[in-house]
């Protein structure tokens, strides 16, 4: 089923010169292989069309269940030169989380442990 990344990930973004970095982190380990296969640099480049004017590089951090994206030529010159309201790209993480991907329903089933936790709470 189609789903916003917001449902299965969290993210933080910031500036590296004129590039923005967007760290995308799976909320659970089981979602990491999914985002690794679905959220490619090409997908992210398309997602940020009109914002990212350069290439998109992707790095994998499996221990942290995370991907790091570097979006080049994105911040209007970066730092103090930029006229952009979001000169440091701090809100781009939110824009990333709005991206929709296909999530297999089987992945969304709660584990016994999670169900139990919910009942206790």
């Amino acid at each position, binding site marked *: 089923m189609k789903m916003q990344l917001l449902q299965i990930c969290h993210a*933080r973004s910031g500036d*590296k*010169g004129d590039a923005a*970095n967007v760290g995308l982190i799976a909320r659970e380990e089981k979602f990491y292989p999914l985002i690794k296969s679905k959220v490619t640099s090409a997908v992210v480049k398309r997602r940020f069309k009109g914002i990212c004017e350069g290439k998109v590089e992707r790095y994998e*951090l499996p*221990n*942290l269940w995370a991907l790091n994206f570097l979006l080049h030529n994105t911040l209007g010159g970066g730092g*103090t030169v930029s006229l952009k309201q979001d000169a440091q790209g701090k809100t781009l993480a939110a824009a990333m989380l*709005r991206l929709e991907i296909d999530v297999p329903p089987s992945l969304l089933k709660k584990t016994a442990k999670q169900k139990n936790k919910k009942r206790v709470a």
Partner: protein
Amino acid sequence: MNGPVVLRRDMKSSIRIASGQGFWGDLPTAPIDQVRRANADSPVDYMMMDYLAEVTMSIMQKQKLKDPNAGYARDLVEVIDAILPDIVEKNIKVITNGGGVNPEACRDAIFAIARKRGIKIKVGVVLGDNILDSLDALLRAGHDLKNMESGEKLTDVRERVLSANVYFGAMPIVEALRQGAQIVITGRTTDTGLTLAPMIYEFGWKENDWNKLAAGTVAGHILECGAQSSGGNFAAGWKSVKDFANIGFPIAEAYDNGDFVITKHPATGGKVSRQTVAEQLLYEIGDPKEYITPDCVADFTSIRLRDLGKDRVLVHDIIGKAATPFYKVSMSYNDGFSASGTLTYTWPDAMEKAKLADKILRARLAKAGCSFDEFRTEFLGYNSCHGPLTPTKERDVQEVVVKFGVRGNDKKSIAEFGKHIAPLILTGPPSVTGFAGGRPKPSDVVAYWPALLKKTAVTPQVVVDEA
């Protein structure tokens, strides 16, 4: 600097380092809170405070030109004034890069406070990072200092350089601690070095113990943005963060094997979890396998997190490799002028009106013969941050702040721009308001110039005095 590591008899197996400030302008009460709340159950041995962003040095350099006793973070002196009796009583050491371009003047201001309070204190300063006066000599000696991002030659902007500083790492701070400093004030030091230094000093880590240096560097990365690792700006679950008003800044509980726990004082607001720490680890990084500092190269892909519950997260198994032979240099230079102004348009047709205002403004400035390198119009409240990714339709916008910004080398054009915002209220589309604060005036654009310099070209100096 490179002397042998002297093993001290009282060597500790764990220390706690508190984060007191994530940038110049961060929550002013945070460092005071970190120190006052410290007790036997939640001890603090060190507090690090980061004051320097990339272009902060240029602001400080300007202040120093006007007043030779200025050029450092004055807020820092206020903080020290507030916590001095506490840090002496509790034996908490303070490490900060708030010395800016004038660490000695900062130290003297702290000495003046200490004398007034009748307190004896040893303060160390780290000098030698400021290479502004030796730029030409460095260039003549064959260091090209080219822009490491664009590849441009420094000679292109040499005449406009405002500040030039080398990023030192942890080692000069370690030296100041060895000489007994309770407060260490540096100029341009890496944010991570402020946290790594006490670990090297207390645990007797060697200068080539890369895994441990990398671990301390990762701890530094987690502490350097203050509460951003303890619930601030937390995307995964900001609604679950309790008591933002009393947010606790992070504390690293470091062990001599390189493992550390991120936590915060009890009974403070905020949250420390696997997710708050993970978000900060992903903040402003490039290639995670190559997190380069003057002290080592840390591999962020090796980091393992374990949520221990109760606002405690264990960070372990970090791997690092040898430092590079270079220091990073941060320079700033004048790069023209900019100005910006805003107006607010409301329903009906808020966006249509704002767009028309933009068209009128551009036509009038063209008629006035103005030229700009960049003219940017953004619609705050509609799509200024996410631009074309915004799904909302323009006609559904109830009110919008239109922000005009210009940048260029022709100061006259920038000044003329400032005169044409307010007139739009009486000479353009209706239901407009929100013009306040007078005409936007041209301000200097200070651009950033990152470069590399061989470590052998500069030598840090450490001076520790008592007053």
